[in-house]
């Protein structure tokens, strides 16, 4: 009951966020001038105080695993040939966080410190998929 496909715009500030991943290999967070919060995922409004947001700021790239799960089924419910670790990762002084994969890890733990591993810069397209995974520090 859907269209054949969708082409979503990502919004003006999220576009900057994705471009900074692509061009600088850096995860940045949105900064709300009004309430002073840094937050992820990036959107051009502040969920918490209801004001417009149009600034990104650099953040510590080191994240902390808040939770993880070994993903065995894909979005169709089919078994994956290569299961992977899905994690929820938070960053210092940042509200919210990111969902991503963990790599180079045998036994993940909650509280584990990780950092992003990016694709080669020429392969990056401006997407969260430009990050291959997060690996333990």
């Amino acid at each position, binding site marked *: 009951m859907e269209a*054949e496909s*969708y082409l979503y715009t990502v*919004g003006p500030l999220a576009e900057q966020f994705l471009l900074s991943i692509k061009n600088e290999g850096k995860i940045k967070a949105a900064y709300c001038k009004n309430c002073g919060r840094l937050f992820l995922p990036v959107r*051009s*409004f502040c969920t*918490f105080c*209801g004001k417009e947001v149009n600034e990104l700021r650099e953040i510590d790239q080191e994240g902390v695993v808040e939770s993880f799960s070994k993903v065995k089924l894909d979005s169709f419910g089919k078994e994956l040939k290569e299961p992977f670790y899905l994690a929820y990762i938070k960053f210092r002084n940042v509200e919210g966080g990111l969902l991503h994969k963990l790599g180079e890890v045998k036994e993940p733990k909650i509280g584990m410190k990780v950092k992003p591993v990016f694709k080669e810069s020429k392969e990056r397209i401006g997407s969260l998929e430009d990050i291959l995974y997060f690996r333990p520090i």
Partner: protein
Amino acid sequence: MKTNINIKNRVAIVGAGMTLFRRRLKETPQELAFEASRVALDSAGLDVKDVEAVVIGSAPDAFDGFHMKGEHLSDGSMGYMKPVKRVFVGGATGVFTAIAGWWHIASGLYDIVLAVAEEKMSNARPHPQGLFKYIWDPIVERPLNPNLIWIFAMEMHRYMYKYNIKKEDIALVSVKNKRNALDHPAAQAAANISVDDVLKSEVLVWPVQRLDISPVSEGAAAVVLVSERVARKITDSPVWIEGVGWNLDSTHWTSRELAYPKYLEEAGNMAYRMAGIENPRKQLDFAEVYDPFDYKELHHMEGLQIANKGEAPKLTKEGVTQRDGDLPICPSGGLLGVGNPIAAAGMMKVCELFWQHRYEAGKRQVRIKRGYGLAQAWGDLMQVSTVVITKT
């Protein structure tokens, strides 16, 4: 219907705002909802903290491309850690969003409610019209590969046949509304065109031609609703919601008389009764009648009893519905002129009530003599209408 007209709590509109209406906007649905909400709150002099509840209106999830679209829109609509609800009556949703906001306050449970409508239609590929096949019955209608325009064309042609109405008379609506929209700062399809331009435009589904139709659009619009107690405190010029009405006819449109919208008559009567209006043609100052197609404005004027059956084209021809006429219809420019991001377009009409009553409509301003304005929307399988009546 034994609707009780002894409403306990009066409700006022104290702020309105909208985004541009365009074919394609860069913002996400949440961001568009946010922008309209922010502008509406600012115009009311209120902050997100003041909002006690949020009502969201949006048409099919398949357009924006989100299941549970109301959930997706909620934090953009200032709904974070608040009661948020989405209502949905097809194309009639925009006006209905304001009605749902009204009952939050009329119930006495809330004092300040934000009503937001949003639509993003150009996410869907290859064309958003393809999605409309899913509005048809999956078993007895979808297999015929219908296009959305078919049903409207069938209704339009039945209307033309029954009352012997000419296409050139219908085209006058498109000419008027697109011209009115030249004065609307958000307009997408404003233009100075002639009846001839409409009649010569591409035939899509006879009798519907390209310029009979409103465009594919994206955008959002919002109003701030408050209780009488709050209204008296924060503004000298509240716009009161005096009547609300909505009505849904049978799903089986093939067994209904398409030439006349009976459901709109019922919805109108519900709202008129509440507002104490006995003669809409004489008592209304202006009406934002739903006009996704030019014939719909005429059809709806008749359902609303602004014109007798089959006689709306005559009023239009006589200039009554022009902005300087005795009963201006769609002074905003309507969906034909401002654009048609479905739910947002209906809400744009409610915004227009607010601006007109407060003499904030600039060049679009009509004369407020008797005090009443009306906004109406329509949708589903030509089966539902929603009506809001306001008073200065």
